[in-house]
């Protein structure tokens, strides 16, 4: 029960940042495939954040259609693998979205954890 609740909480709060997370990861790692992204996020957040498959692929397809991501296909083992990478527009957009996210984090921080006023 508590596990389920945690997952729900995750999806609500993180939903808006999913695209930014994907783009940031692609910027760092060059090209990645869907499953790799889910595993990477899990590893970085030590299992705290679990991107669901049902959310990841729609996000990837949307970013691709918007021209922010490009795709590549490689034959790996006995199957085909679809890699995503940032386009030039995607790289620029990534910078914007990251700074937006940082602002958001900073503002949330000061709202949730107001630092004591220094002037008396």
């Amino acid at each position, binding site marked *: 029960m508590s596990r389920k609740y945690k997952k729900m909480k995750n999806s609500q709060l993180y939903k808006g940042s999913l695209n930014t997370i994907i783009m940031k990861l692609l910027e760092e790692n060059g090209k990645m495939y869907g499953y790799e992204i889910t595993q990477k996020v899990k590893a970085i957040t030590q299992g705290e954040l679990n991107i669901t*498959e*049902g959310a990841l692929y729609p996000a990837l397809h949307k970013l691709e259609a918007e021209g922010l991501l490009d*795709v590549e296909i490689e034959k790996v083992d006995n199957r085909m693998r*679809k890699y995503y990478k940032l386009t030039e527009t995607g790289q620029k957009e990534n910078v914007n979205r990251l700074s937006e996210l940082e602002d958001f984090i900073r503002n949330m921080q000061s709202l949730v954890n107001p630092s004591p006023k220094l002037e008396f």
Partner: protein
Amino acid sequence: MKLTTRQIDQLYLFTRQHYVEYYDLQTELVDHLANAIETEWQQNPKLTFDEVLNKEFNKFGVFGFMDVVESRQAALGKKYNRIVWEHFKDFFGIPKIVLTLAAALLLFIILKASTYQEWTIIGLYLALFGFTIYEMIKSQRQRINKKKLQQKRWLFEDIINQYGAFSGAILLPFNVLLQIYNRIDSYVTNDYFLLAISLVLVLLSVILFIIFKLIPSKTQTYLKQTYPEFKLENL
């Protein structure tokens, strides 16, 4: 443990059984499931292929692959609309704009000189209407044949052949036309109205030409651009 080729084929079958008709989406989902199964086997080597597959499939939620299919459809639908729009804009750039305007003007002159203006207008519209129906039935037949032959289906190819979201919109002006027809006597004597309807008919023809002739003739180019795997498949 790596998946065998037979198991990969089984995964393709699994996606088809779960309403993923398109090869491009099947491929992406098959690779995802295969990776997930291989990872799971490292932790629980005793589980059977089917057990692990079901476990992984459940992670997609109650609607299974539906969300993924729908979002892909929406994304590619947008892409298609953008392509139509690009081509349409083309007709308003030099030199094509001269042709567009000349056609509208010519139609205007013909309508003005004609004694049967309303019949000319209705006739032209019905010709466009007939052309639309004819092309739609033709491509519907081709699609059914392709399905029978069990060839690989590409989502974007189907969107091109089903004319994206435009198929319904093409027939829409029919109501407007009927409205106008009821009051046609007062309209046809008005030059502005004649000019407007000439322009509308020409623009309608341009759109129909783009979606039924121009874009389908470039299907291969668009598919190669959308799907890198298309080249691998059709070597």
